């Protein structure tokens, strides 16, 4: 498995070498039979490295497909891959892609810390950027109020909203005290706040008895679990999503936190689904798989083909970042081709941008679109877990499917107001 991954990364890295070998003061290539250059910025090391690699595979799958079926409006796609690290360095990578490699479009970014810092820079630089993920709604509202060059994914809070709805639907009246253990950054903070706001909206009286904020990447959660156990909650809400999620699960199971009747809600479990082994992950929890649930029986042929391709390459099953990456590429392709057709020739950046507004695509996980305010709409999958499957990790016993227009605020609305007033159709 490792050697396969390295090969993929080498293949992807190879395009990076090509780009870097260019002279320092390169003239823009204008010939239209040259490949379209798409820059990708994704994490490749550290705690989000897995996620970045899964996304890169989604991109690879999309590009293989595009290049073998005539490219984007006749032009093949060439990737230039750069590493997402901290905000400062990642922004320097963006500058390199845009100013030096002269890419036509930049896609990627997993961490909201990076995307929220990068958005304004992209606007300043007039660089077309499509974010895979990492766009918490208030952050986007603050740092990218009038997006023109940046295109955001669905609000990060969608998954928290959906699993809160499921918690209300399935467990109303069965819990009074709630506890949270969420990653210590805007994503985790917003998710837990959204959960509480939704409980309030549905008139569920509750009391928060513990809230824990472990730093992303903490590998020893014994003390956090002890604090949760001491609070004796009826329900635990946790949007942990990196390697700390399996650790939490194992630690909580070991300490007996899961022995009683406590309910568990994991809106982002899908990032780690295959690492949550049955032996320490009891069934009956709410798991969020975001925009791609690999085992969805009614999934499209495209999804099934991808899951099989992915499994052959990695002996693993993909998470939603692959879908986000595929979606970003699909939106870009649809935009360029629509603009190309409308103009009857190769479109400029502004043409592509206006064509991408409102464009609809089929992504791996299901239908999606790009709203006029540059926020994506996609299909979400969550449900209650079961052990009744052929894998060594739980899957969804019942699958709820929701389109994100029921899960995120509309254009120009305030998120917290929207939660109060929205008429959500389950």
């Amino acid at each position: 498995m490792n050697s396969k991954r390295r090969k993929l990364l080498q293949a992807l890295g190879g395009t990076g070498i090509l780009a870097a070998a260019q002279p320092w003061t390169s003239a823009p290539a204008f010939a239209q039979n040259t490949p379209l250059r798409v820059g990708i910025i994704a994490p490749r090391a550290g705690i989000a490295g897995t996620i970045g690699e899964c996304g890169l595979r989604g991109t690879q799958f999309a590009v293989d497909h595009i290049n073998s079926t005539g490219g984007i409006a006749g032009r093949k796609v060439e990737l230039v891959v750069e590493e997402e690290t901290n905000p400062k360095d990642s922004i320097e990578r963006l500058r390199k892609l845009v100013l030096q490699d002269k890419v036509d479009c930049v896609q990627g970014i997993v961490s909201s810390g990076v995307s929220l810092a990068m958005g304004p820079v992209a606007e300043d630089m007039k660089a077309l950027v499509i974010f895979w993920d990492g766009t918490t709604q208030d952050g986007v509202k603050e740092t990218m109020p009038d997006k023109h060059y940046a295109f955001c994914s669905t609000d990060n809070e969608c998954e928290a909203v959906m699993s809160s709805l499921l918690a209300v639907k399935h467990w109303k009246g069965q819990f009074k005290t709630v506890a949270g253990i969420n990653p210590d950054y805007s994503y985790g903070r917003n998710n837990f706040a959204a959960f509480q706001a939704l409980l309030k909206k549905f008139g569920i009286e509750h009391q928060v008895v513990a809230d824990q904020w472990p730093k992303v990447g903490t590998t020893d959660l014994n003390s956090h679990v002890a604090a949760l156990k001491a609070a004796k909650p009826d329900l635990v809400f946790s949007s942990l999503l990196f390697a700390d999620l399996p650790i939490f699960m194992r630690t909580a199971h070991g300490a007996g936190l899961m022995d009683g009747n406590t309910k568990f809600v994991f809106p982002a479990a899908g990032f780690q689904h295959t690492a949550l082994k049955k032996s320490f992950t009891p069934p009956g929890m709410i798991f969020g798989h975001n925009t791609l649930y690999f085992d969805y029986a009614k999934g499209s042929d495209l999804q099934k083909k991808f899951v099989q391709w992915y499994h052959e390459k990695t002996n693993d099953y993909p998470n939603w970042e692959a879908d986000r990456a595929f979606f970003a590429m699909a939106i870009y392709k649809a935009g360029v081709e629509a603009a190309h057709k409308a103009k009857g020739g190769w479109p400029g950046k502004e043409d592509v941008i206006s064509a991408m507004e409102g464009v609809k695509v089929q992504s791996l996980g299901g239908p999606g679109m790009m709203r006029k305010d540059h926020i994506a709409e996609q299909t979400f999958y969550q449900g209650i877990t079961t052990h009744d499957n052929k894998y060594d990790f739980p899957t969804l016993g019942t699958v709820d499917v929701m389109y994100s227009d029921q899960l995120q605020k509309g254009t120009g609305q305030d998120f917290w107001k929207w939660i109060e007033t929205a008429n959500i159709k389950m």
Partner: protein
Amino acid sequence: MKIAAVLVAFVAVAALPRVLSPYHVTLVLPALAYSIALLGFNLLFGYTGLLSFGHALFVAIGGYGAAVLSSKLGLRSFEAILLLSAAAAVAVAIPIGLLAVRYVKIFFGILTLAFGMLFHSFLFKFYDLTGGDTGIRVLRPSLLGRAYEDLDKTTWLVGPFYYYCVGLLAVLAFVMWRLVHSPFGLHLVATRENRRKAEYLGVRVRFFRLIAFSISAFYGAIGGAILAVNTGQADPELAYWTHSGELVFMTVLGGFGNFFGPIVGAFSFIFLKDQLVGLTQYWRFWLGAILILIVVLFPRGLSGLVERMWARLHRSTPS
């Protein structure tokens, strides 16, 4: 001769935007910022002999100063931002310095590291105040009262802002030059060479170290403010200990025994890192390997290497 060389280098740096692509000019900006920060750092390290492994603390104060002043308090004048951020850094440096200058060597390094990490966890944990891991946006400031609203960010960065920073580096380098060649600078070197002897000669060792520490904080914050304006964001990584490590790396790469060493170090580090990141995903490995080479084979850094070659050249040409 030396003055001529400095002037040539200065003119060359000022002319870079005419030769280089905009991307490489935006790379020079952090190099300028680090040059300023490292001039201060080297007053402490090279001249006073105190190795701070938490110096990123002051760079972060400069960055967050620019962020808070520009986007929370609406202050747009870059001169005011620089002065206030640097003043904040000095205000923080004095109490820390009072504690830290009692130690030398590794203990000084560890204590400063602890303070740097203290600030990092404050930035990281107090989400409502500091924006947590995302940090705070830095809005584009006005330079000498001019806003340049007609320029987009890249043009502004590689145009007015670039020349502003070059000018700032020239001024601050000149001030530092005067400082290290003043009696104060000589006293610092004396305290490094032999503490007892310095005391005997009437040098108040701790007091002088404290002053050096505060000045280095001042320079660090100015560098940090430039860095943050360039990125458009101040984030907690600025204060993380590995960033402090990079500062030491740059200084040793350039050579801490030479006044201009840190500037050489800042420029070569930035371009080295950019090239490596473009070439391989294993750039950390090669960066580390180069650092080991420098430490083992060329402890006087690049500037030491140049000095040696220069000396050899002079010996061979009859004068």
